[in-house]
């Protein structure tokens, strides 16, 4: 996706120096020069000049969503799958505010994204003009950076700057606010797209400190009960291979966070599952009892640590992260290493290979025996004898039929946790979910963004009847662009995770967690021009899945009626340590 057409040498420069473009044309041209293929958006008054410029070229293709939130999630999911920034174009006022949830979603998960928002004419700003909102003010706390255009000739520089900031260091969304008068079609300026940007105030660290890396290796080799705890930084930092090599070299147990699923292959015997609130019994036990924790691109989120005061009492913590502010934020780190995960792990591997000292193999063997005992305690069991369909079973079957290789885009709730626990992610960038913000409505647009960019891949949207209705209108966009997403709607008639908490903490008083008057999802899918299949018994599941995945180019909406009483387990006991867990409705540690 790096541009081949970009004028990065002098001869190219001189031939292009005289090219005169309007601000609107510059926006689109800069995106083309950046190598952007798809722009997700929705037109409106303030961006009409830009849309007109878009119409008059064919390098950048536009995807018209039905609600701006979906545009942001499409761009976001593309970024999660590809590692490159997704790009959004929306109008001022409501167009921009509708994008806010999507920007915040990307921000919480450190996803690179460039959001172009229209703005009213410069001279009207501050006067409560029609469709005016202070988008810089609104987006400031939920994006990595934001900027506005003050002179049309700055547009190429600002767009390059936006991509630079979004994609380097700890990635994140960048908002560029463009007043309409910056894009006037009849005012033309010399166009030059900078090959690179150097900001004196923004110089993200890349390599780790070699002394710290050596210290970390020494600590790791002295461990008797080590664990590798890997997060989303490994995925966005493309360091899966290095992580796997390190784990293999030292025979370390590996746990992935919700954001890190796929960073280490789930089918490998050293993988002990996800950790945290709904982590596996063995992952949480192993963490709690570890003497050395190597945290890689993870941020000790509250959904991982449980009570920070009781967190892993015996552990020496090594933490590799690109963001110094993530180090010792919630949990004190003993050996911090600031840098990109990939070069740091590479250097760590080099140091390790030169060392004569090895891990204490007897202690490690004992540690693995202990871990295997923990594995036997829960092992992701669920009731397989019940007559009603179990959500866990559905996910297992989806995992099987797609051989663990599909892109799984999830919404938020119980179904998300079941997907995280029971789908076997063997590759990075395949599990796409809103981990930090927990945005219901994320799943379908996310699946669309992935399917558009990876048309030959199986793309699954795991959702529930609550989440899917938050962006159901996008079924129309799917039809327009022929996006053959497979929707696994785990329908239990309840906002399942809310209901689970109400069962556990509110004596089953289901305050507003039951949805009456649900639509007939099969008819609804058909009304949008798609295929709908209802599944109500375990026997119907297999043939329905086979039919759905055989229909390669069609969107298939599988409305799967599951046991409404099911809870997600294990679940950490609030206020407890990592290893304080409920294991079922009747058992706890």
């Amino acid at each position, binding site marked *: 996706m790096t541009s081949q057409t970009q004028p990065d040498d002098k001869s190219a420069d001189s031939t292009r120096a005289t090219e005169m473009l309007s601000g609107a044309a510059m926006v689109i041209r800069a995106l083309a020069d950046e190598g952007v293929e798809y722009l997700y958006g929705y037109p409106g008054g303030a961006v009409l000049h830009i849309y007109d410029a878009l119409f008059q070229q064919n390098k950048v293709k536009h995807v018209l969503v039905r609600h701006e939130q979906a545009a942001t999630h499409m761009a976001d999911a593309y970024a999660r799958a590809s590692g490159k920034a997704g790009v959004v174009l929306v109008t001022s006022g409501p167009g921009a505010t509708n994008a806010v949830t999507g920007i915040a979603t990307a921000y919480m998960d450190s996803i690179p994204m460039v959001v172009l928002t229209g703005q009213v004419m410069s001279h009207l700003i501050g006067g409560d003009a029609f469709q005016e909102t202070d988008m810089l003010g609104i987006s400031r706390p939920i994006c990595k950076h934001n900027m506005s255009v003050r002179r049309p000739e700055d547009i190429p520089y600002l767009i390059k700057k936006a991509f630079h*900031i979004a994609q380097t260091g700890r990635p994140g969304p960048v908002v560029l606010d463009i007043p309409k008068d910056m894009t006037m079609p009849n005012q033309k300026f010399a166009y030059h797209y900078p090959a690179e940007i150097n900001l004196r105030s923004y110089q993200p660290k890349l390599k780790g400190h070699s002394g710290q890396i050596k210290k970390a290796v020494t600590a790791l080799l002295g461990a008797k009960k080590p664990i590798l705890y890997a997060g989303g930084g490994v995925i966005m930092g493309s360091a899966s291979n290095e992580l796997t090599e390190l784990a293999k070299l030292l025979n370390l147990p590996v746990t992935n966070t919700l954001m890190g699923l796929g960073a280490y292959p789930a089918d490998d015997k050293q993988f002990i599952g996800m950790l945290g609130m709904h982590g596996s019994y063995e992952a949480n036990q192993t963490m709690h009892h570890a003497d050395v924790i190597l945290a890689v691109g993870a941020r000790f989120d509250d959904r991982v640590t449980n009570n920070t005061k009781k967190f892993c009492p015996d552990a020496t913590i090594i933490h590799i992260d690109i*963001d110094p502010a993530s180090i010792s934020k919630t949990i004190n780190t003993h050996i911090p290493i600031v840098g990109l995960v990939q070069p740091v792990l590479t250097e760590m591997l080099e140091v390790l290979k030169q060392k004569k000292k090895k891990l204490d193999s007897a202690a490690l063997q004992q540690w693995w025996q202990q871990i295997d005992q923990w594995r036997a305690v829960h092992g992701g069991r669920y009731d397989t004898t019940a007559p009603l369909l179990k959500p866990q079973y559905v996910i297992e079957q989806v995992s099987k039929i797609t051989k663990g290789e599909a892109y799984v885009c999830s919404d938020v709730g119980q179904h998300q946790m079941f997907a995280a626990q029971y789908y076997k992610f063997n590759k990075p960038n395949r599990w796409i979910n809103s981990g930090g913000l927990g945005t219901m409505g994320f799943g379908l647009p996310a699946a669309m963004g992935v399917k558009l960019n990876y048309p030959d891949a199986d793309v699954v949207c795991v959702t529930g009847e609550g989440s899917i209705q938050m962006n159901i209108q996008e079924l129309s966009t799917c039809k327009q662009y022929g996006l053959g997403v497979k929707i696994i709607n785990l329908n239990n008639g309840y906002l399942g995770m809310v209901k689970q908490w109400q069962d556990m903490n509110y004596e089953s008083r289901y305050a507003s967690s039951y949805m009456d008057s649900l639509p007939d999802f099969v008819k609804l899918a058909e009304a949008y021009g798609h295929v709908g299949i209802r599944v109500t018994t375990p026997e119907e599941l297999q043939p329905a899945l086979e039919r759905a995945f055989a229909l390669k180019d069609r969107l298939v909406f599988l409305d799967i009626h599951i046991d409404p009483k099911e809870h997600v387990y294990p679940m950490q006991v609030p206020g407890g340590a990592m290893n304080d867990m409920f294991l079922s409705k009747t058992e706890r540690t």
Partner: protein
Amino acid sequence: MRHIISVLLENESGALARLVGLFAQRGYNIDSLNVAATEDPTLSRLTLVTHGNDQVIEQISKQLHKLIEVVKVSDISEAAHIERELMLVKVKASGNQREEVKRCADIFRGQIIDVTPATYTIQLVGTSDKLDAFIQALGTTPIMEVVRSGASGIARGEKTLAL
């Protein structure tokens, strides 16, 4: 613990709002804030007085540094430094009190910079503690108005916070 944090910031619109917003969003305290352009008009120098435990102060420094427009951050109270704040105080000064206020201002090396038959306006420069002490020392003198700049700070010796 009280800390004085100096920040070198790109002198761009929105940069200050982003910095102040950070404190509100993350629940950090601002006791005082003082900002102006430097000799290089593209840079602003900001002095921020805050308080918190070591972990909070460390996070404040790191989070400030994360802001794209922040060029440099330094906790100048970690080493030898000079701190100055400007205060303007308007007090009622008539009868016997008039002499007493003048004496008090002299003791604190303040200057009376505006006079009416019934008031004095006093200018005082010093550490924030000294300004607090002056207010205390005014005792029963009726204070009509107080304006304080917030502290500005600079490291002692050859250490600088510059590009």
